[in-house]
């Protein structure tokens, strides 16, 4: 009897630990865990100073009352970032134009550079032009200091590692902020239509 009970106890404790460690079998990766955590508990994003492709300084909070979709890029990137750029270009086409309805509520797209030292406003402008970014609706920006970059990446839960060729590897996802500036949803970048719908609806 005792051996059977011991085995059953191990299976019960082991299953409970695995269940807890995977958020109920829903997150086996840290990216999955990050998305679940944000969906459960929206995150406050620190008011980090950013500078966009026109050299204008702003914070995400200053976009004031508008839903925001954020992705992270670096302009030298030849793999993930061009795909993220194509996604935002497609989302931009689907967004309501700022001339119709409540202009104040028009969503904004923000691409944030993870390589602010190299990504000067000129480089950001090149990236913006390459993807047809309309500066009123899609701002390509960089944090203004290393401390700002670190704070922003930590708040979003972005992990940046070297790619072994002088560039970076990082989480590829689209981050939706609600009108109060809180990170509320993280989604895959492969469905621009769904992103446009969600960000228009205020995530």
């Amino acid at each position, binding site marked *: 009897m005792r051996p059977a009970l011991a085995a059953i106890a191990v299976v019960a*404790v*082991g299953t409970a*630990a695995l269940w807890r*460690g*995977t958020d109920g079998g829903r997150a*086996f990766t840290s990216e*999955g865990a990050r998305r679940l955590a944000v969906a459960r508990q929206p995150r406050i994003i620190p008011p980090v100073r950013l500078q966009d492709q026109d050299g204008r300084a702003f914070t995400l909070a200053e976009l004031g009352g508008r839903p925001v979709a954020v992705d992270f890029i670096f302009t030298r990137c030849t793999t993930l970032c061009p795909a993220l750029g194509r996604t935002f270009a497609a989302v931009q086409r689907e967004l309501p134009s700022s001339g119709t309805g409540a202009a104040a509520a028009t969503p904004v797209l923000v691409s944030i550079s993870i390589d602010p030292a190299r990504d000067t406003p000129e480089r950001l402008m090149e990236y913006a032009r390459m993807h047809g970014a309309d500066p009123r609706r899609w701002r390509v920006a960089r944090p203004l200091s290393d401390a700002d970059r670190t704070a922003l990446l930590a708040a979003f839960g972005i992990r940046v*590692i070297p790619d072994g060729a002088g560039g970076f590897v990082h989480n590829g996802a689209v981050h939706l902020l609600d009108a109060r500036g809180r990170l509320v949803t993280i989604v895959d970048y492969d469905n621009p239509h769904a992103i446009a719908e969600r960000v228009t609806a205020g995530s």
Partner: protein
Amino acid sequence: MPGARARGAAGVALWGALAVPAVRHLLESSMVGHMMGELPALAAAGWLATALVPGRARRALAAFDPHGVAAVLTAAFAITAWSLPRQLDAAITSPASALTRLLLFPPLAGSALALGWERMTGLGRAFVAANSLSMVGAMGWLYVAAPVRLCTSYRFDQQQTVGVSLLAATGLLCAGLVAAAFVGRVPPA
């Protein structure tokens, strides 16, 4: 037993070495080093250190688990849990997770397996060995076939290298198992 004491000391020394930050960082700098170097080494440290467990404690454990089933199940759960991609990331990004793994993985994976192994029947050992083959093989296939990065701490190409290495390890384990099964000593009739 001097041999047992030396084995136990080697286990504790290995455990201590794996606690040194420089050693950890070196092993964790590549995904292969992390999964196929550090984790097996932590388990090996626990396995070897088991030699220091006194006879009284072994007998007490044997009273609860005479066939080693609970011990081997403990090891299986520990290995599964700490092999999850998010746990590999956590061990790198969270010092608390790293410390928890350093303290718990050797006893729960290595020592539990060692204590269970010595009480298992031959058929039980063969069952565990054959199942570990399919487990390592499936994990290798998963890492080779996954279309996305599973760990945010490692590149996609490192993940594929782990997959190929796990498949190679499966082949070696399989060869070893076949050799042990069919070329081993014949028991007296």
